[in-house]
């Protein structure tokens, strides 16, 4: 009897979760798909066509910029933490505490910091660059964390074998350990891309909300998620904002699927 009740509640919770997700997706698709018009993808944004193409291009710029900043930094700090720092090095605990705290901070706080520091103090103005640095700080902990886990998962026997052949630390880390950790690192990066694409709060006050394609990294420009936020908060283009939501949803879903696919592919290649 007791186990029946337990089972019932477990099934119920799972059902509610799944139903909520399904409802959300179906709702967005039903509202959005009929509103997908070619004019939403025109090259130039005007307040009549509310084109999202500039925002899509800005999103790509932003993603690339953030990855260029955060991925090398994240990977190198993870390598330092796992391969170089001595186990009892106090620095390790400081870094760990910092990254854990960073990953718990709401993104609006990053936005505020980015505005005060990059936009105002460094005088970068509202720009893709300021937004990218803000987002980099935001995704750095998770890239570091996943890379650390991936490096730790590489068996020590690989390291031993490499040292045993007379390879140095540098060669061992970069030619043996890092390649073996690539699937894990990659899935971390793709997760980060998902966050970048979906982020609004940290970007509104740093990269700004200009609806045109940015000419350079010192230009302001809104990403797709910010674009959607603006459309729906202005209240004049609700239908178009649903259409934008569809595109965003498909994008994020595709990125998540890609993450799983890449990890499987790379795993399959080595096993």
């Amino acid at each position, binding site marked *: 009897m007791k186990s029946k009740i337990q089972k019932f509640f477990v099934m119920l919770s799972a059902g509610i979760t799944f139903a909520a997700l399904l409802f959300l997706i179906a709702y967005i698709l039903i509202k959005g798909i009929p509103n997908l018009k070619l004019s939403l993808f025109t090259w130039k944004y005007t307040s009549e066509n509310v084109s999202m193409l500039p925002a899509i291009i800005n999103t790509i710029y932003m993603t690339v910029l953030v990855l260029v900043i955060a991925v090398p930094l994240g990977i190198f700090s993870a390598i330092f933490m796992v391969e170089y720092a001595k186990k009892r090095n106090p620095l390790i605990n400081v870094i760990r505490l910092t990254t854990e705290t960073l990953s718990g901070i709401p993104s609006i706080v990053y936005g505020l910091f980015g505005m005060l520091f990059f936009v105002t103090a460094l005088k970068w103005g509202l720009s893709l660059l300021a937004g990218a640095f803000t987002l980099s700080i935001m995704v750095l902990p998770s890239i570091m964390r996943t890379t650390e886990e991936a490096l730790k998962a590489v068996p020590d026997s690989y390291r031993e074998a490499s*040292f*045993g*052949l007379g390879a140095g630390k540098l060669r061992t880390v970069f030619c043996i350990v890092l390649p073996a950790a690539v699937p894990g690192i990659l899935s971390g990066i793709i997760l980060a891309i998902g966050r970048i694409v979906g982020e609004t709060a940290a970007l509104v006050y740093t990269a700004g909300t200009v609806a045109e394609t940015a000419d350079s990294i010192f230009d302001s420009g809104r990403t797709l998620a910010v674009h959607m936020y603006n459309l729906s908060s202005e209240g004049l283009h609700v239908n178009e904002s649903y259409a934008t939501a569809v595109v965003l949803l498909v994008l994020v879903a595709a990125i998540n699927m890609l993450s799983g696919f890449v990890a499987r592919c790379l795993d399959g290649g080595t096993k």
Partner: protein
Amino acid sequence: MNAIIESRNLKLWYGDHQVLKSISMEIPEHEITALIGPSGCGKSTFLKTLNRMNDLVGNVRITGEVNYNGKNIYSPEVDVTKLRREIGMVFQKPNPFPMSIYENVAYGPKTHGIRSKTELDGIVEESLKASALWEEVKDRLKTSALGLSGGQQQRLCIARAISVHPSVILMDESTASLDPVSTGKIEDLLMELKSQYTVIMVTHNMQQAVRISDRCAFFLMGELVESGSTEQLFAKPQDKRTEAYITGRFG
């Protein structure tokens, strides 16, 4: 007897725990020396002192000398990279890199600066032939090494060790995880290799020591109890403890 490696009063501590108690031993060139003894007596530790793999473990203290070709490998001016190139190692569990068979063997020579494709091709073929694996893998050199069987993987690891042309190969129970057929293949291989290399192997398997080793050393609780020609050590052990061990009374 021409000793290629000689340890003198070698003592080793992990923290406060002394694991090697003044080991003095000579290892002759182009012979197979077997290290035997019960688990935990320090065989692996001793083996690892011979190419300084213990450097990788924190909290180790070593006193005494290990002379390789008459030079102490623990003196400060020794280049550990070069030393490990000359004294290679094959581990207990096969540990090929997660790369292609070809890349596994080419990694060592590349590490030491060989870039030419034809030269690498030559080394890969020669090493795989020397480890009796060539015929089995020559048509799939580009496939992952992790797809090989355990015995094949271990022979690949031997090929990888040979690829940098060492003079000494250290083997730590390298057949312990293999089936009898694979073990037999590797034993045959070692008998052939000893004309070119000096082999020092740890083994748990008395029969294996008798079958293939020329010399044998018996370790017990961090001490070298007895060493000598395998024949003599098994036929007429000088020490009571050796006799007890080889007749299977403990271990």
